[in-house]
């Protein structure tokens, strides 16, 4: 059994070599936050990534978003769906391509990480709309990205997963703690380091670094991080794409209560999370 520990910077460097890195996302987010961004600027940015514009248009014409007439250009799509919805489509495409990289770990079937991340994103979006504390499109993006550290870890450290599995089963601790005990870091630290190398904004770095333990996030990011913490557990209930570690994720019930996220509210959102994720995953294998 291997006991080699790969230093975190080396792991991050190896994970950066995975195809379809989401380097365009922070630039898109920057434009979303600018007051005077035009459709042309967004189109120019998206066209930097070959294939992304057509993938985004295909999604715009999917059952989830389409109206009576198909969109055949970016301008059409922006008129039809609005700027924020187009942003959401583009981020979905960018994140999904990266999350679809094959990696062995966490008991995933092909596509599981993407399916689960998308369900978290839909839950975060709905919760953000309900609570009005964080922009829904940022919550959605954060949901899509929250587990990027797991992909990196599974890609580089797969041979160590049996030890992690045994440690977790023996100690009955959160899976993240088992990673930390055996590797010296966990998937949230990996994710934080990875997003820093791509110059992601501080709020998203806070989400990927602290979503299992929202109290550790800086005060200005706590509402967003808590939103993802709650959405993560909503998605776990539905089970879609949940790996072997899923139900051992930490849960901080006190911070949910403080933020006005009640058990009743969460339960009432489940049907909408199911409906939203089902539409976006249409054509994919269920589960």
């Amino acid at each position: 059994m291997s006991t080699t520990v790969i230093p975190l910077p080396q792991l991050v460097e190896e994970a950066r070599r995975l195809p379809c890195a989401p380097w365009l996302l922070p630039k898109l987010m920057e434009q979303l936050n600018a007051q005077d961004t035009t459709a042309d600027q967004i189109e120019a940015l998206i066209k930097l990534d070959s294939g992304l514009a057509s993938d985004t248009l295909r999604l715009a014409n999917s059952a989830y978003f389409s109206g009576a007439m198909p969109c055949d250009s970016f301008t059409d799509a922006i008129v039809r769906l609005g700027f924020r919805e187009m942003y959401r489509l583009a981020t979905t495409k960018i994140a999904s391509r990266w999350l679809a990289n094959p990696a062995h770990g966490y008991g995933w079937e092909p596509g599981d990480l993407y399916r689960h991340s998308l369900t978290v994103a839909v839950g975060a979006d709905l919760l953000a709309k309900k609570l009005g504390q964080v922009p829904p499109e940022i919550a959605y993006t954060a949901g899509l990205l929250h587990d990027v550290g797991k992909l990196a870890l599974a890609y580089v450290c797969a041979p160590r997963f049996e030890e992690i599995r045994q440690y977790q089963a023996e100690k009955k601790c959160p899976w993240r703690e088992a990673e930390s005990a055996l590797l010296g870091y966990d998937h949230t630290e990996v994710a934080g380091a990875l997003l820093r190398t791509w110059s992601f904004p501080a709020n998203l770095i806070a989400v990927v670094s602290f979503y299992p333990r929202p109290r550790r996030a800086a005060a200005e990011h706590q509402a967003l991080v808590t939103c993802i913490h709650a959405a993560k557990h909503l998605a776990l209930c539905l089970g879609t794409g949940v790996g072997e570690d899923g139900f051992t994720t930490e849960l901080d019930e006190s911070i949910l209560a403080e933020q006005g996220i009640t058990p009743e509210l969460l339960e009432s959102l489940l049907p909408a999370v199911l409906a939203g994720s089902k539409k976006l995953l249409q054509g994919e294998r269920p589960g």
Partner: protein
Amino acid sequence: MPPDLETPPPELIVSIGDLKESKNPQGVIVTYALGSCLGITCYDPFGRMGGMLHAMLPDSKAGHQSALARAAYLDTGIADLIQRVTELGGNPRVFQFKVFGGAQTIQASNYFNIGAKNITMMEALATQLRLQVKVWEVGGPRNRTIRFYLRDGGVKLHMPSQPDLYL
């Protein structure tokens, strides 16, 4: 033993809040990733027919605003499952049930205890309706996928990174 799957029979897929039934003795009914939901199989061993329910929530009278299907709830879903297998020609007096799912986060107490609520409701329904439940494979921090083989009523249970079981 699990049936030979070299030439897999056609699978009926049950999504969340759905139920499917079949009287094809070579048929297989599958539902993926139960999470906190419950997957329930109902089998007539003499007619070699059966159905599967994938219910998300315990009680249809809990007042959720969205119009979920009856199969999304255990109380209405179980009644429909029994009715649909009976309509296929099954005899409710010999129906055998197997119950899977109801996973729960290890640190949950007041929140996200839907899995526990589902199990409690299913236990109550089993008592109330005098259901013959042959397998309870529920609770714990495990996501479950189940495949139901109508030729013998067996269920192949898959959990991430665990060897499959045939129950």
